[in-house]
């Protein structure tokens, strides 16, 4: 599983960062990006799904 952030859609709500801080980082302006290559270990799959389901900009997706 991979988590992907569409940086064009991100407006810096930081919901993903608070729900999945091991998968997502934010820059000094609060805009999000996936950590590393976005690989989601099985124990963080729920956190990844929460990040997707709480982004008001629909900027986060998961590739199974």
């Amino acid at each position: 599983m991979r988590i992907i952030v569409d940086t064009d859609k991100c407006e810096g709500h930081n919901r993903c960062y608070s729900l999945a801080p091991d998968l997502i980082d934010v820059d000094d302006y609060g805009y999000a990006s996936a950590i590393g290559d976005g690989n989601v270990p099985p124990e963080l799959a729920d956190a990844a799904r929460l990040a997707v389901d709480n982004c008001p900009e629909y900027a986060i997706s998961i590739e199974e």
Partner: protein
Amino acid sequence: MTDTSDGLDFAAATTEPVEDWATDYDIFDPDYIADPFPIWDDLRGGCPVAHTDRWQGSWLPTKYDDVVALARMVPELSSTDPIVVKPPSDDTADANAYSTVNAPPISSDPPVHTWSRRLILPAFSPKATEAHEPFTRQLCQDLIAQFIDRGEVDAAGEYAQQIPPRVIAHLLGVDPERADDFVEWVNGVLGAGLSRPEVRTHYRGKIREFFMAEIADRKANPKDDLISELLAAEIDGEPVPDLHVAGTCNLLLVAGIDTTWSSIGAALWHLATHSDDRQLLVDDPSKLDNAIEELLRAYAPVTMARVVQEQTEFQGVTFEPGDKILMNFPGANRDPEAFENADVVDLERQRNRHVAFGVGIHRCAGSNLARLEMQVAIGEFLKAIPEFHLAEGANVTWAGGQVRGPRKLPIVF
């Protein structure tokens, strides 16, 4: 009621009764302020984009998808005039005070919006915001210590309303002892001032005067605070104009105070009237952060306005240039097409794309700070006062129009 040091009338606007909400709604109607939810539900089913001629005219979308689409409609909808009720066009005091300053970036369109937003975002990033947590926690504990022995408190006036002015003062680097003044000024702009432009103009002037003096002081004696940072910033090699800095400080003061105390107050109102939810958070404080998101969804306080720039067809209605469109994020958050059991406040809701902080380029820049204040304010309150409820016969009063929240919330414990 005249209750300000400047003797201005802060009474609620008087309104004619509303008979048809689809064609003649009134955002200052007492029923709308107290309980807008059934009104939005009715409109969604029949006339999802309502219209009124009242208060200089506006449109009110009520569905999530519509509100989100309209919020993203830039540049067709402009943010240059986010307050619904304008001062009379001959009011040159207001025009002079704010035509050039206003409150960037909330009152700006691109390209000014883009650089003026980037200017303040670093001060409100998640990491920068965390630095204000110890101050906020100590403040909440000190406030609670002042009333905990009494067994009763006005949780809006004596608690919720006291927190954001001091946090913002701390962040800006201005005297937190002026908090009572800030409360009066902000009430003058976003409380009574929403429907009384002459009151708003007066207090905007006071705020500008205050910040121009602070700016002059920082130029002589730079400090480690946000005002000094804004003055040191450069845009295309030029310093940011003083009036712009004053406008941004005005925004941080006004938008950072009224909105957040409304959210803290509404959250406390919910917990005072829903003992199961209160107990849930007392038993397991780790559920608090998620619960705050649901309380933000259910009681989102803010409805800013946009101005139509060119004739636009939208969902069967025609917006004309100059029309105001209300960004009804609170109504969007209650749309059953976007949220399962939208009218049920479920503090354990997992899927919650609420738009309490807006969407698109005007997403609330201070959302991380607002969340921090809510989490700390509610968390500390529950820790010190795990059992509380509304006082018997309590006269809870709400403010509303464009920022909704309780202004009097008598509780006992």
